[in-house]
């Protein structure tokens, strides 16, 4: 269990960007991607997302587990939606009837060219969002989170809270490990396999409660330190100064344009309705 924010993209092209670029890029990309239901455009968005991800040079070995979990979860979500929606497909062009291949045994859910395309677009969209989002955790230096959000217009108190949150993570994770070890020494058995969820939740109490209460009680030192330095009495200054260079501006213009094009395209073209390749339509 390693919860320390890992700066895996250190030195990469993306890590050298102003960290605000990484945050704004994700926001623009998410808002653009959720408007697109045309498979061809979604494939282009995936290409953009993975090209962007590659510039962060995050070693795959280090994030393999995260990718596996994310892909597994997306697959389950898309599959469950396909099953439970019982063949109802959103974003079908007007007047188009689903081209049904057959029905799932027992459930009777129709499987059609349109439902498969819909599921594929959903899957690709989630993958692209994950690829664009990854660099926020791994290609932004942990010590600039506060100033990043402050310069993005987040009130400085909350920007400072975000900064503190990242800083607390490693020490709280360590406290949590120590609590588990301490309870094991006292004979706590965490391996009991009762099927009763209430009993299993209650079994976590000896670990969760001391970890949480100790963390809160230990916060007094931090609060006192902040009070003694006059936190909240005036606008805070930050050590780091963020300046957008020419490349940063070009990246921002690129992602901003993507959002504008996706929005206008959704209004005046068919990019926001499902497009089904002819090749998969049953003859």
């Amino acid at each position, binding site marked *: 269990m390693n919860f320390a924010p890992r700066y895996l993209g250190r030195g990469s092209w993306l890590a050298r960007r102003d960290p605000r670029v990484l945050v704004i890029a994700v926001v623009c990309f998410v808002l653009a991607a959720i408007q697109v239901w045309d498979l061809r455009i979604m494939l282009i968005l995936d290409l953009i997302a993975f090209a962007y991800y590659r510039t962060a040079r995050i070693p795959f070995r280090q994030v393999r587990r995260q990718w596996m979990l994310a892909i597994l979860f997306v697959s389950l979500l898309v599959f469950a939606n396909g099953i439970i*929606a019982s063949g109802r497909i959103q974003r079908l062009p007007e007047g188009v009837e689903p081209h049904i291949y057959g029905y799932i045994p027992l459930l009777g859910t129709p499987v059609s060219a349109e439902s498969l395309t819909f599921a594929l677009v959903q899957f690709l969209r989630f993958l692209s969002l994950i690829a664009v989002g990854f660099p926020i955790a791994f290609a932004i230096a942990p010590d600039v989170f506060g100033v990043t959000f402050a310069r993005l217009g987040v009130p400085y108190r909350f920007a400072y809270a975000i900064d503190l*949150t990242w*800083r607390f993570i490693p020490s709280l994770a360590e406290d949590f490990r120590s609590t588990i070890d301490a309870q094991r020494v006292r004979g706590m058995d965490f391996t009991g396999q009762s099927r009763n969820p209430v009993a299993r939740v209650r079994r976590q109490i000896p670990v*969760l409660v001391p970890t949480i209460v100790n963390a809160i009680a230990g916060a007094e030192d931090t609060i006192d330190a902040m009070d003694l330095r006059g*936190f909240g009495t005036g606008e805070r200054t930050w050590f780091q100064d963020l300046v957008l260079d020419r490349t940063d501006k070009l990246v921002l213009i690129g992602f901003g344009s993507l959002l504008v094009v996706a929005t206008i395209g959704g209004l005046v073209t068919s990019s926001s309705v499902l497009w089904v390749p002819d090749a998969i339509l049953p003859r």
Partner: protein
Amino acid sequence: MTSMSMPRSMWTVDSRTIVYAAIGAALYGVLVGLFKIPVPGTTAVDARPAFALVPFFGFAFGPVVGLFTGLVGNMIGDQISGWGALTSYNWSIANGVVGLLAGLAPAYLGSMMSGSLGRRAAAGAVGGAIAVVIGFLVVFSDMIKDQMDFNAVLTTEYIPVVIGDLIVTIILVPVLVYAWEPVKERLGR
């Protein structure tokens, strides 16, 4: 000489609010992915004990802390797990709304809040449960964001998450209130 302190508004954002919010978000972000307890007889219902942090921090420290703990904590948990902080931003908002509503419990559970420690612990469970049921209605925005079917959101998202989170809220929030209140008294807060 006598000293007087102004009553602290539940919307105050001072150093105490900031630090408790940061601790709540960090703890939630770290712990949320660790413990998942499947609920028998269901396919996708997990009780996540760490979720109790959201209603507890809201209830104990106010709506601003609850909102931050749920919103930022869920984003951090998603980011650490690889899902991405903004991939399911509406779920983070839902978590934040749960913390916010739990923090407003003193406004709608007035009589329970002023009683004994046992009554306040029960108020934590009731306030948290109400917050969970209402707060997670935000996930129905998946119908717009991901074009998901209403029944799919209801049966694979809303009901599972509410059942799992109600279990941990009702069990753990009173325990946390019982554990925290004496410490709070000792610290003079």
